[in-house]
Structure formats: structure tokens, C-alpha cells
């Protein structure tokens, strides 16, 4: 069966995949830091780097898609039954993501501390990793609402055409 996958689809799915992977890497840092000791320092720093690289990739993919492909979907959303999917969820998501990204870039810096012997640094890394997971999942959830906003706008249009 021939696959009909456009570059827009690939970029959008890559954006979401990198975002989720970044959140999971941050959770990995969180769990490892709860049991921080010299033996797992390397794993913590690797996971922090994975979180930062994934968020940078999510930013690049999402940014390219948002600038080049989103305007057409935005038009559908705004004339559909869920305009708030853009006006509230996309507007919040596109700016909230910057907060997640900044935290993700901060994480590798914070994990350079000696976490096994520094309780303040452990607390800091737990807070940063936790905030990345929370804001990142909020951004992912907003993405789902936006996607649904497009879907029901298209369904609404199809149903109107059929009547």
C-alpha cells in the first residue's frame, strides 16, 4: 500500500516525538537524582544532555512547521467550532514552550554540580527536571487540543457540505 506522508506530517510528528522524548529524559534525570551518588553521575549528565538536545530539536521542527504549515490549519480552526484551540491553546503553547526549552538548556548546567554531595544542587536539579516534565506535558496536551480543533473544523465542514 503506498504511503502518502508529506514533509509537513514528518516534521510535525518529529516535533511531538522530540518533545515527548525530552520530557522522558527530564523524568529520567529526576529519578536518577533522587538516588544521586558518584556511580550514576554520568547517567544523570547524559540524560540532561538528551533532554536539552531533544528540546532543541523539538524547537527547530516545531518552529519550522509553525511558520510554514500552521497558517492553513489556523484558518480552519478559526472558522470551525473550536476557535479557542488557536486563540487560547496554541497562543499559550507556542510561548510556554520557550519556558520548557530554557529549563531544558539549564538542566545540563545544573547537573555539572556534584549532586551526590550537594543537597542544594540535588534540590535544584529535581525542581528543573520536574518543571520540564510538567510544562512539557502541558505543551503536549495543548498540541492534542489544537489537533482536535483542526479535526472537528474539517468534520464540521464536511457535515455542512453533506446537508
Amino acid at each position, binding site marked *: 500500500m503506498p504511503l502518502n506522508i508529506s514533509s509537513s506530517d514528518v516534521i510535525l510528528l518529529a516535533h511531538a516525538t522530540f518533545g515527548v522524548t525530552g520530557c522522558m529524559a527530564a523524568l529520567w534525570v529526576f529519578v536518577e537524582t533522587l538516588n544521586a551518588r558518584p556511580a550514576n553521575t554520568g547517567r544523570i549528565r547524559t540524560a540532561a544532555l538528551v533532554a536539552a538536545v531533544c528540546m532543541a530539536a523539538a524547537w527547530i521542527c516545531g*518552529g519550522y512547521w509553525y511558520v510554514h504549515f500552521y497558517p492553513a490549519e489556523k484558518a480552519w480552526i478559526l472558522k470551525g467550532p473550536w476557535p479557542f484551540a488557536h486563540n487560547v491553546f496554541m497562543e499559550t503553547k507556542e510561548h510556554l514552550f520557550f519556558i520548557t526549552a530554557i529549563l531544558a538548556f539549564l538542566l545540563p548546567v545544573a547537573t555539572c*554540580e556534584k549532586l551526590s554531595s550537594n*543537597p542544594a544542587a540535588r534540590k535544584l536539579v529535581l525542581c528543573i527536571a520536574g518543571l520540564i516534565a510538567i510544562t512539557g506535558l502541558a505543551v503536549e496536551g495543548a498540541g492534542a487540543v489544537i489537533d482536535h480543533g483542526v479535526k472537528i473544523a474539517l468534520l464540521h465542514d464536511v457535515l455542512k457540505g453533506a446537508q
Partner: protein
Amino acid sequence: MDSTIRSETAKLTAATAGFVLAAAIAVLFNTALACAKDAYAPLKDFMKSLSGHDWTTQGLVDLLLFVGLGFIFTITRVAEKINANHLIGVLVGAVGVAGLGLALWYAFF
């Protein structure tokens, strides 16, 4: 008290403290800029003229601010003087205010 506990420190290095403070400022700036460009169209147009899209410009400005302030605070050792727990509180508070501020702004304005 055993030796492990005695050897524990509760201070952050100049680089970590500097970048934490820079991140707190950058996330608050991000929300302020998002609200300002939404409320004042000429600012949005100006940002659009710089990179082709206001969102792209905002991302670059946020990143430059975070990295720039991070290096400045590291070199000047300003943030290092702040108590580590207070610094963590500032970061968490800034992210909370900035995130909630964005959601409330776009939900009600």
C-alpha cells in the same frame, strides 16, 4: 555525624547560580514580551520585520537573554551570593508566574 554528611555542601557554583537567575529572568521576560506584543501591534510588526515571524524573533531574544545574562552573572558572581534555596524558590516562582500568566492572558484577553 558521619563524614559523608559533614562533607556535604549547600552552595551552587557561580555558573549554576548565574544561569538559574538568568533562566528566572528570561522566563518572566518571555511572558511579558508575549503579552506586550499581543497588546501592542506595532511591536509585533517590528518583531516580525526582524526575522520574518514575531515568534522566531521572540525565541531568539529569549535565548540570547538567557545565555547573555547567564555568562554575565557567572563572570560577575552576582547570583553566587544569593542563598541556594532562595534561588531555587525564585526559579520555581518565576516559572509558575510566567506559565500561569501566559494561560490567563490568552484565556481572558
